């Protein structure tokens, strides 16, 4: 049964009508770290429905001290090993007032298939962790490489605020259908990653 108000269809077939104005940022799914797994994986829900997918990670806490937080992408099959070229820089400021703004050649990727670092040397003190946002553009395209950008803020193990910027592309024309987050070693003790679609 449809519900029509003033000549406008509001609901039909169990859903809001597509003509009804609503938010353009749609929550899709959420994963929660509980210390039992090394990865948090969005294995479904990444389709052609949205032009941009946004992943917001909040208070990701490593079980092991001084580990990197990483991301990788699935471009067919079951493995998260899409070829990537990325750039990486950070701005850091320590509690001891040390500072740096630098490109980090050891944390970028040049046509590699391994996991891309998106936060570095994260502390596992009880009140530390990493939060940030990853944008993935048009993952379902079979024409273009897949551009992505990430910015994160972490507390490093040596009590340093670390602002990390990663830009790059999955150098494949196959659709990206899965995204996997992981620590470089050890489990994800706690934290939430939410996936949104942008109209």
């Amino acid at each position, binding site marked *: 049964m449809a519900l029509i*108000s003033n000549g406008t269809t509001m609901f039909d077939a169990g859903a809001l009508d597509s003509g009804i104005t609503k938010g353009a940022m749609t929550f899709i799914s959420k994963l929660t770290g509980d210390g039992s797994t090394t990865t948090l994986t969005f294995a479904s829900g990444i389709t052609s429905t949205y032009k941009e997918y946004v992943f917001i990670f909040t208070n990701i806490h490593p079980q092991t001290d001084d580990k990197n937080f990483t991301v990788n992408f699935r471009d067919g099959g079951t493995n998260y090993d899409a070829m990537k070229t990325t750039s990486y820089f950070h701005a850091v400021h320590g509690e001891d007032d040390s500072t740096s703004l630098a490109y980090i050649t050891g944390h970028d990727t040049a046509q590699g298939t391994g996991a891309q670092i998106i936060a570095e040397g994260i502390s596992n003190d009880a009140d530390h962790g990493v939060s940030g946002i990853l944008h993935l553009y048009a993952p379902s395209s079979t024409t273009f490489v897949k551009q992505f950008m990430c910015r994160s803020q972490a507390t490093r193990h040596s009590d340093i605020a670390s602002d990390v910027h990663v830009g790059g592309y999955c150098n494949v024309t196959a659709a990206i259908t899965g995204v996997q987050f992981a620590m470089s070693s050890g489990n994800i003790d706690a934290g939430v990653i939410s996936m949104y679609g942008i109209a």
Partner: protein
Amino acid sequence: MGVISNGTTLLDAGALDSGVPTGKLTLIKTLTASSSSTLSFIDGAASVVLDDTYGVYIIKFINVHPQTNDTQFGMQFNAAGAADFNETITNTIFKSRQEEDASPAELALDVGGVLSQATGLCKISHPVGNLANEALSGHVTLYNPSSTTFLKNFISVVNHSYPSATADVDANGQTMNIFTNGYINTASAIDEVKFQFVSGNIESGTIQLFGLGASA
């Protein structure tokens, strides 16, 4: 017919009631390039809203692909009632880049690409490649464009493929992460924005205008 639940109006007169929570990011307009010389959002035209309805506007670029190889992408603005997309802008731009063969990799200011109280195209990318799989994606955030008190700040972040086999790099592809911040140095309201490549048309791609609600 309205629908009232527990004393609260949920919908009436063909629309959700304003009191019903919805997302605060609203898609206003989608433009799709088809060998377009420019793509523009003009308040009041073609269902575009670019006024004091929203305090913050976000413009997203999805796989913007140039017809001409090795050309920069940029934007300009118009104040309300003005013409010619030639507002005075001062901006910064820096890049983080890496080539597919790992060299060069660098973080650097791009002092040659900025505007200093100038009215030309505000470039928000380095030259973009136009191989079949190369394009630019990202976003620009424009703050309070309807203000008649403040100049207008903007922040842009894009990532794109740098052209292969250009004169100043070797034959490999390259990722370019470009950060552009600046301000439109006018107290007049801004109600139009235009995007284009320095040379050649926008062959394909999508540009979307969003309004962010509940922001001053």
